[in-house]
């Protein structure tokens, strides 16, 4: 079972006797709270942390009859594109075990790809559901912001993230989204748009008359084999009656920079809660002291716990976020990133008036070899170029297998208008 290291904790949480997910096993990403079952976020900081309550999505899985069979491995606190920053070791890609499964929801995608779970939940802050879905050859959906409750999701960057489904087929992924979508009084950012959804019914493969926009900027610099597979898929859709148009979105060239400024800034604030007092690694354990009184004052004690509890990528992002928000730099970085976010939204609005959906390769590159990117964080950040614009614009997107390049899975991403989940599900189902 540990062949791919897809799980941090194996468990068995039974749901209701019947429901739409009765008889289905679901892997839940380890940043989603499960009452009584350890939830680590892939971090030493939260090793041993046992939530006293369920996330709303977990309550909904149980009510739908699902059996949760474990907590899936992930990049520490969701910060990574490869699942290699997990404190509990890297997850291997079932399609090629010398390669990473993508991240940060790599355990979730690998569990589904390897058949260790029927379905999985991930979370997507800048592509963390879509990237691993693409690399592992499965389907992943990042819902419109506000469609799915984040109550019980350990926060990384609140304004960007959504919990999303991963499955072998578009219909199953859409069906899982039907279960988890819908308003929740415990998350004030949720909307009613998903309350009585039937996204699964939209997986009918009917793209006759659908207009698919391709932003040229999202193909720039992409791997040749990936681009070839992408165009083959677009031709396939044209043969089924869809129409393809080119669109231009100059703003997306600023998306990676804007995303990292915003995500890191929010992370620096959100992760301030981990000081070892109420939960998590304590200064006594971290500093090997006999007693708390030896750990120094609270500044010293917290800094000791955080040095020991956080891995390098998490420290990097907390520090860069702290810097971007600090006096003298706030307007230059954070303020400008918000302008870029508004610009990107505007570009998407215009493009989605010219087309029903937009399409791009999910990842500009095939799955990395294990260890390839750990030394140079910036290379990893740039791999998120096609996924982060969607989070900045609060839009829905799906990654669906489009074929292979050099024997490795290639994912195609469809992006829809706000609450346009049915349209992206329909488009993606035409490629199966």
């Amino acid at each position, binding site marked *: 079972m540990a062949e791919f290291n897809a799980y941090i904790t194996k468990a068995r949480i039974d749901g209701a006797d019947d429901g739409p997910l009765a008889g289905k096993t679901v892997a839940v990403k380890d940043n989603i709270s499960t009452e009584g079952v350890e939830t680590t976020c892939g971090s030493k900081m939260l090793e*041993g942390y*046992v939530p*006293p*309550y369920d996330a709303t999505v977990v309550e909904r899985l149980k009510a739908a009859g699902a059996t949760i069979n474990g907590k899936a491995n992930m990049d520490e606190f969701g910060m990574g594109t490869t699942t290699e920053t997990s404190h509990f070791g890297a997850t291997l890609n079932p399609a090629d075990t010398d390669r990473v499964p993508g991240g940060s929801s790599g355990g979730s995608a690998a569990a589904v790809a390897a058949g260790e779970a029927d379905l999985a939940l991930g979370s997507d802050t800048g592509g963390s559901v879509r990237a691993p879905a693409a690399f592992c050859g499965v389907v992943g959906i990042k819902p419109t912001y506000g469609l799915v409750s984040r109550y019980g999701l350990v926060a990384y960057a609140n304004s960007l993230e959504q919990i999303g489904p991963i499955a072998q087929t578009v219909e199953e992924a859409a069906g899982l989204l039907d279960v988890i979508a819908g308003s929740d009084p415990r998350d*004030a*950012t949720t909307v009613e748009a998903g309350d009585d959804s039937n996204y699964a019914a939209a997986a009918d493969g009917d793209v006759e008359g659908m207009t698919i926009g391709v932003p040229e900027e999202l193909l720039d610099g992409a791997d040749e084999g990936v681009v070839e597979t992408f165009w083959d898929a677009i031709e396939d859709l044209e043969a089924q009656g869809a129409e393809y148009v080119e669109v231009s979105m100059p*703003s997306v060239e*600023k998306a*990676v*920079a*804007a995303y*990292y*400024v915003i995500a890191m800034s929010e992370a*620096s604030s959100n992760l*301030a809660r981990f*000081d*070892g*007092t*109420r*939960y998590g690694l*304590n*200064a*006594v354990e971290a500093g090997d002291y006999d007693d*708390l009184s030896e*750990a*120094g*004052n*609270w*500044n*010293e*004690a*917290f*800094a*000791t716990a*955080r*040095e020991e509890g*956080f891995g*390098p990528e998490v*420290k990097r992002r*907390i*520090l*860069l976020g*702290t*810097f*971007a928000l*600090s006096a003298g*730099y706030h307007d*230059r*970085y954070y303020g*400008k*990133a918000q*302008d*870029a976010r*508004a*610009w990107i939204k*505007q570009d998407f609005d215009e493009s989605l008036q010219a087309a029903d959906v937009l399409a791009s390769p999910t990842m500009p590159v095939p799955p990395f070899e294990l260890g390839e990117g750990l030394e140079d*964080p*910036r290379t990893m*950040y740039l791999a998120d170029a096609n996924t982060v614009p969607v989070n900045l614009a*609060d839009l829905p997107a799906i990654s669906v297998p489009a074929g292979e390049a050099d024997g490795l899975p290639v994912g195609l991403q469809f992006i829809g208008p706000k609450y346009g989940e049915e349209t992206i599900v329909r488009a993606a189902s035409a490629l199966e």
Partner: protein
Amino acid sequence: MSDGDEPAVTGEEVRNVADLARVDLNDEEVETFAEQFEAVLADFETLDEVPEIESEPDLVNVMRADEVEAGLTQEEALSNASETEDGYFKGPRVS
């Protein structure tokens, strides 16, 4: 992090930010981060070319009456704390 075109990041600046963020770093981490931050901050600097956009925020404040509901019990709330005393969290001394 000077005002020049290429932000040069010193170890002292990394240490200063780490202090603000309450994260201790060893010398090796400081050196690595200084080098890596230079490249990342150079990317951030390109945001300077972004035009100003007029936009309306999508989210508005939603108010509701404050209703008392059952929450975690004291025991549940304390269940993950490694240091507690008389039903309270126990933290390090303030100064």
